[in-house]
């Protein structure tokens, strides 16, 4: 039983922490968030130069061969820094599908650019009707002698508006909820027949609604075994769930710290509001929520890193905890900041919104509790 970091892990964490503290303050983040792409290309290039985009890819694929622990370390700090650069969409989601299922040729074509920070990618799996059911896919891929014709609608595709590469799921066979028959396809972002409606999300990031009707792709655009993509998608979503939970823990920790600090300086009735017991106990509850969430994060991440049985159960436990504890910490931080907590000006409001968005991603608290309650 050991919770300490290896030398390499410590160096990685230090490098992220140093960059964020030197070059990524809240005002800068707001500027990137408000720019047309919703993030900074220049910052993304720096992420690549620092090696961060290479973290989970194998050495053969040009990466470092790291795993869930390293992703967790980075994402927790990205949470603290409220980073808008699309690490989750590129590296964890699209990159996760590509590295698990890509043929040598497919990886050669796309992974280099992704790791170099030159190619933007997105995983387009969720649909308007699917909510959190990963097997619910209505989009279709009809095979013919030239390849496939794709038709369907993909919902709230993270980073979808910026993507040079879309990894799109569609049914090559089976009914809407069948486990078998789901396939993944590599689709260039500028392919004819794609309708991409880009929009901002409440957390200062970007997503898109993506529709396609008889979109032509070649036979070699299929990623992995046709019809057998669901286990890969589940595994990618599990890893993405861990990643956003790590991000959420970072956010919860920083919100708690900022709230405690604020309560020491904000004076009402002639005393700092932090001297009121009603508020003290609520801040202790915030600390408790952070510590308990961090404990589950370590448990689930280490299980996933070891590939141990029970990982899916652990991830649902963690996501349920993040959903409930994150809501509590976010709401309390806003409440204790008073009127300022509900202004656009204050970072607390933006942390709260990102935490709320994470609560909705990859299964909300109810969804994961139902999975545990059997």
């Amino acid at each position, binding site marked *: *039983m050991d919770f300490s970091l290896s030398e390499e892990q410590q160096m990685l964490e230090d490098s992220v922490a140093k960059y964020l503290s030197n070059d990524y303050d809240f005002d800068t983040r707001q500027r990137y968030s408000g720019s047309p792409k919703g993030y900074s290309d220049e910052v993304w290039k720096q992420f690549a130069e620092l090696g961060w985009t290479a973290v989970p890819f194998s050495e053969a694929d040009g990466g470092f061969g790291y795993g869930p622990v390293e992703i967790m370390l980075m994402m927790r700090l990205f949470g603290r820094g409220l980073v808008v650069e699309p690490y989750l969409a590129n590296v964890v989601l699209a990159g996760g599908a590509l590295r698990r299922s890509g043929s040598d040729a497919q990886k050669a074509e796309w992974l280099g650019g992704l790791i170099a920070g030159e190619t933007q990618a997105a995983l387009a799996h969720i649909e308007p009707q699917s909510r959190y059911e990963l097997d619910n896919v209505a989009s279709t891929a009809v095979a013919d002698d030239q390849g496939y014709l794709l038709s369907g609608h993909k919902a709230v595709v993270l980073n979808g508006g910026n993507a040079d590469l879309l990894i799109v799921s569609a049914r090559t066979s089976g009914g809407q909820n069948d486990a078998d028959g789901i396939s993944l396809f590599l689709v260039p972002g500028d392919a004819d027949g794609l309708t991409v409606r880009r929009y901002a999300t409440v957390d200062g990031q970007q997503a898109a609604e993506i529709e396609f009707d008889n979109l032509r792709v070649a036979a070699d655009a299929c990623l992995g075994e046709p019809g057998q993509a669901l286990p890969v998608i589940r595994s990618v979503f599990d890893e993405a769930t861990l990643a956003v939970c790590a991000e959420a823990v970072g956010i919860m920790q920083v919100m708690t710290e900022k709230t405690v600090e604020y309560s020491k300086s904000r004076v009402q009735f002639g005393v700092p509001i932090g*001297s009121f017991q009603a508020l*003290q106990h609520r801040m202790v509850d915030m600390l408790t929520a952070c510590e308990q969430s961090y*404990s*589950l994060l370590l448990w689930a991440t*280490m299980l996933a890193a070891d590939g141990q049985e029970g990982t899916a159960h652990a991830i649902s436990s963690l996501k349920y905890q993040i959903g409930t504890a994150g809501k509590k910490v976010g709401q309390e931080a806003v409440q204790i900041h008073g009127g300022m907590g509900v202004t656009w000006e204050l970072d607390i409001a933006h942390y709260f919104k990102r935490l709320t968005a994470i609560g909705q991603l990859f299964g909300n608290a109810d969804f994961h509790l139902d999975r545990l309650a059997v």
Partner: protein
Amino acid sequence: MNLTFSQEELEFRDQIRRVFENEFPDDIRVQRDSGVTISPDDQVRFQKWLFERGWSAVNWPKEYGGTGWTPVQKYLFMQELAEVNAPDIVPFGLSMVGPVIYTFGNDDQKQRFLPDILESNVWWCQGYSEPGSGSDLASLKTRADLDGDHYVVNGTKTWTTLAQHADWIFCLVRTNSDVARRQEGISFVLVDMNSPGVSVKPIITIEGEHEVNEVHFEDVRVPVTNLVGEEGKGWTYGKVLLQHERTNIAAVHHSKFRLRRLREQAERSVRGATPLVQNPSFMRKLAAVEVELKALEFTELRTLAAVSAGKAPGPESSILKFVGTEIQQAIDELYVDAAGYYALPFVPEQYAPDFARDERIGEGNETRASSRYFNFRKASIYGGSNEIQKNIVAKHVLGL
């Protein structure tokens, strides 16, 4: 980062487990499984069984007859203890006064008291709380006035758990009232319960059992040789005692055992009824408590890892008590939920070991659920109420 215990630690655990499986007294196991109240004689027999294996003083260093175990070994031992549903070790001698005596007592006191504590020959109880001082312990009023080579003790201690079986009591008493801070002038003394002037009056708690007492002291003469450490330093010693109480304070192992048993209960169909496991509302509540407990398990392991590495535990250690007791109480509520109508019968005599089994009420232990639920409302009140714990965290961890 590594989730598993080392090979040596696992071997240690297996060794303990084998002994529990093969040698644990069968009749005590049966009593525990059927939910009857363990008699004081059986309690002592169980603790002597631990002593014979060198396991009675889990926290003590080897030189005083303790196990000398590492924090991880202690953790694994407590886990195995919970897994066989063993009785709790009565803490007052082995976990509380013992460490105070070997840390602050003189050689004579160590020789007089420690062997009998180790062997559970002497039953101790704790004289801290008073009728007027609950969570505000420093307001205690029991006085010990020096008269030659004796203190004369007058006052009342309350909530004294199992004092009706006790041979000795350790007390915080005021030896000096003329002090700048109330925490000064308090001393730690050991009192023979057979001394003239000591009387014990039962307090019947909410569920109808006799567990706690008031202990009255009327001109009780206590030899000054029973003062532990220096006069007026009792508050400091008392705090050290509370630190020793930390091991297992969250009761994670016990809660894990109880949740697992509750799940098994929920899966059983009673007389053809739909098992509770198919009730989504109940199962969601159960699952939510399981998540909270898993988090606490790893919060405790983080503390353990820090202590094992020779570091001071982080803020996570400060939440163990109040989260642990909240979880215990949440589990109690689930048991009451699960008991349905059988939460109603109030028949305390059926928990005596000699009560005829075929006259007991209910299918299983369901009728125990409400008595435990009522009794364990104490958990968030004793040892410094959970509100006091939060005050402490606010002050010492958050700096408020």
